[in-house]
């Protein structure tokens, strides 16, 4: 696969470094300033949790970092690569080789089995793990041949995580991954994410409304009104199992 735009990644730099990042939707009376100048640096291999009230811009930031959208102004670096300067196809390659996503609604392909959903990604990635191995990591080795309709919500979300991690992404973005799940299932999912972060060294961003999740993060970012209102580095990180819901 061609990823000329992303060659010579300088891994000594922070995974993400942004300055004065803004995002404006629409114009005139319907103009919305979703991001009003975000300055943030995130070292590689960290687990970051984003908290904040609804509409504060968390998803917007995640989408921009993940290459689904572009910022209106400001600078944004992924290691030494200027994400702001990438065109459509470079962003596609960026997502393809480096990024994994997990959404609130699992977005699995209903016409593919669990295993096949994962293979969808391993077939196009450069250095993927075995699809079955990815499913095993999320504890679904026994459900490989089931279609999404035959899986519970939590299981579907775990397949989505397996699919996201199977290509060994450097970064994993999770927008409210537990939003549609009960607390017990949610904990299982968070546990999986934490393991991925530990074992694979994947940088993980988790957007959540459950403030207690912050305890398992290396870095907690509080959002308010399109800006970072508070940034905390946790000295002591709890495991997902220890979190108090």
């Amino acid at each position, binding site marked *: 696969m061609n990823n000329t735009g992303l060659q010579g990644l300088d891994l000594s730099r922070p995974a993400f470094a942004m300055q004065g990042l803004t995002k404006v939707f629409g114009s005139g009376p319907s103009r919305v300033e979703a991001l009003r100048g975000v300055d943030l640096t995130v070292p590689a291999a960290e687990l970051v949790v984003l908290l904040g009230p609804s509409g504060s811009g968390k*998803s917007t930031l995640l*989408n921009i970092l*993940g290459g*689904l*959208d572009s910022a209106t102004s400001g600078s944004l670096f992924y290691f030494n690569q200027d994400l702001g300067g990438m065109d459509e*196809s470079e962003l*596609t*390659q*960026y*997502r*393809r*080789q480096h*990024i994994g*996503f997990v*959404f609130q*609604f699992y*977005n*699995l*392909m*209903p*016409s*593919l089995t669990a295993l*096949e*959903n994962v*293979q*969808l*990604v391993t*077939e*196009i*990635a450069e250095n993927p793990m075995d699809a079955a191995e990815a499913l095993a990591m999320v504890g679904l080795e026994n459900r490989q041949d*089931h*279609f*999404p*309709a*035959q899986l519970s*919500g939590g299981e*579907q979300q775990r397949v989505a995580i397996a*699919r996201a991690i199977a290509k060994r992404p450097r970064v994993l973005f999770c927008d409210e991954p537990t939003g*549609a799940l009960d607390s017990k299932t949610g904990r299982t999912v968070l546990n999986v994410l934490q393991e991925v972060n530990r074992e694979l060294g994947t940088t993980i961003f988790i957007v959540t409304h459950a403030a207690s999740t912050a305890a398992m993060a290396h870095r907690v970012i509080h959002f308010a009104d399109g800006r970072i209102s508070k940034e905390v580095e946790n000295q002591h990180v709890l495991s997902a199992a220890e979190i108090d819901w």
Partner: protein
Amino acid sequence: MLASLDQKLLRDLWRVRGQALAIAVVMAFGVMLMVMMDGLINSLSETKRSYYERYRLAQVFAPVKRAPKHLLQQIAHWPDVTAVEGRISGGALINLPEETIPIRAQAVSLPDYRAPRLNDIYLAEGRRLDPTHKNEILLLEGFANARGIQPGDYLTATLNGARRSFHVVGLAQAPEFLYTPAPGEIVPDDKRFAVFWMSEDALAAALDMDGAFNEVLLTQPLGVNSAHLLYQLDQLLMSYGALGAYTLDDHLSNRFISEEIQQLENSNRVVPPVFMGVAAFLLYIVISRMVQSEREQIGLLKAFGYTGWEISLHYLKFVLLIAIFGALLGCVLGVLGGRGLSGVYQLYYKFPFLLFRLDPATVISSVLVSIVVACAGAAWVVRRVFALTPAQAMRPPTPTDFSTGLRFGQGLLAKFDQPTRMVLRTLNRHPLKTMMSIGGIALGMALSAGMLNVLTAFDRTLAFSFEQVDRSDLNVNFVEPLGPDSLYYLARLPGVLAAEGVRDVPAIFHFGRERYRGVVTALAPAPQLFRSLDKHGQPIALPQQGIVLSKALAGQLKVQNGDTLLVDIRQGRRPKLPIQVAAIAETMTGAPAYMDLKALNRLMFEPGRVSGAHLRIDMHHAQTLYAKLKDMPAIASVNLKNHSRQAMEKMMDEGAGATRYVMMIIAAVITFGIVYNSARIAFAERARDLASLRVMGLTKSEAAFVLLGELGIITLLAIPVGCAFGYGLSALISAGFSNDLYQVPVTVVPTAYGSAAVAVLLAALGSGYLIKRDLDRLDLVGALKTRE
């Protein structure tokens, strides 16, 4: 009342505007055809009826060789005869200075001091005949216009071998000459056939008919069966050389116009309903998709207290807006198309007036039909609105279950990558939907393929009759059948390369209760210039005994191979000959009956006679040859094959031909409408999956494959089905359009299917392109935000 729902309605309509427009256009075409054909049928039959009535067209015609006038009184006293007229009519040749070949014409008498009781004329220009000037004529308007002849001009014509000069005092039309092909042809050519009317006395003098007539015209009270009258006439006129009485139904000009109206009625019964069906189908799919994707919203509305009726009304309104727009557009197109077509009709059917008149009831009924059709399409779906409960609708979406349904063999699937599996599983998961899509596209294709097939096959028939059947350059007809010397004489004329005699004998075929006025065509063994061929182009062997009938004629008479016909020969000694049917052959034009020349002459006790000849000539000497033929009194007419052919081709290109292009465009639009709709709906259903694929890093083309691959497979599967449907349709069309004047063959024309398939592929590519464009613009974040 539902102001906010109406707002939603308009937004939804705008969102699916491409599809809505495609459906409205399909519907518009259905309505257009309905309005156009209904209006044409209405205009043609009304105009025909009033034209016939105003100019007192006869209902029964009885041609005879020469009968004394006093017979007319006798006939007038028969019961059930309301009017009788006797007249004289005869073949003539018009000699124009610019034409080396004399033009065939028919001279018809008009009574000298009164208006004709039957078969009056419509005087288009100039004045009527002055009986004191015996050289005055009225000329058929179409011919006069084509030749630039005006009242006041003089022209020379040969009548009964004598050349005379005539004074054209007026131009006329008549209901019996609505459609005027030259004898033996089926396409009129204004330039090459004329009718002129002249004083009865003068014509009688020219044709040796003093005190006599050679045609009886009759009318009967309404609703009286004419069979007995025909029999009586034949009996009465038998000894004077009756050629067989016939009714208006068998009158050639009337037959052509009636067949035309009949065919319009047939098409009107089949074609618009097909379009309406397609439109209903498309609406059903769109609405069904909308209700499916809006089930949560519906549940919500119900939870708020909206009734099932109110919500259903919302979707019905959506459908009605499309239907009414389509119907109105169709009415406008129908009127425009109808006006244009009635102009084309007037080129071939010489009505003094033909106004495209639209019955307001037609407009109202087509709008109503569209509405009913649209509602029928929506009704199935609306049931589901009622069935939905708020709770059901509010449950989180469960992904479609792909675990059930036909399992592909794992070995088979293992060969494919995941995107291909998605395509295959989707097609397989919804076999009914897949089949409906395939069926829809195949139907659209069948319309094009069937229509193209029939038209091309018809063209080929014509080419076939001009290239294979008739391989001569010109043919001549003699005034009376002549002996074999005539052929030697013709063959020795300068420029004649080969001459071949034929004998056409007018005859009435009887079998059981059936009766057909036709011609026996007798040919020499193994003819070269004019051959009897079957539909495969193989020469029909003419046996030493018996007659070979075309399938069309056999059908008319209801005879089987081996039956014995009574052939009532209407020439010479007029023998009534029992002749066995030796074979039935599938021919391509007309309803011919073939016999061996010697065999026929033997039966008629007229050895060696021929009624005309086909000639192959050296074009370098053509002009001198024409001049020679022109001066031979024994020759009734000379006909250049190329002229007939040109007339035929002109009609194919301008008249009936023009409508075929309209039909093709309509079929193409329908095909595109169906393909585009299927693609759009697949896109809408898959938007979220496609966005997910893009988020995972699949490129635009890779994501598009999942969608377009499905469209591609459906399209490819639809093509063979479309071919099969198309063949069925062309068989239906040819069955409906064939008669004893011409047959529409059911031969398979591969290019027709090829072109239709190409049209479908182009429609698929076009739709694919439009969808791909939208896919490239897909808002990834937006698509993923929604739940379903």
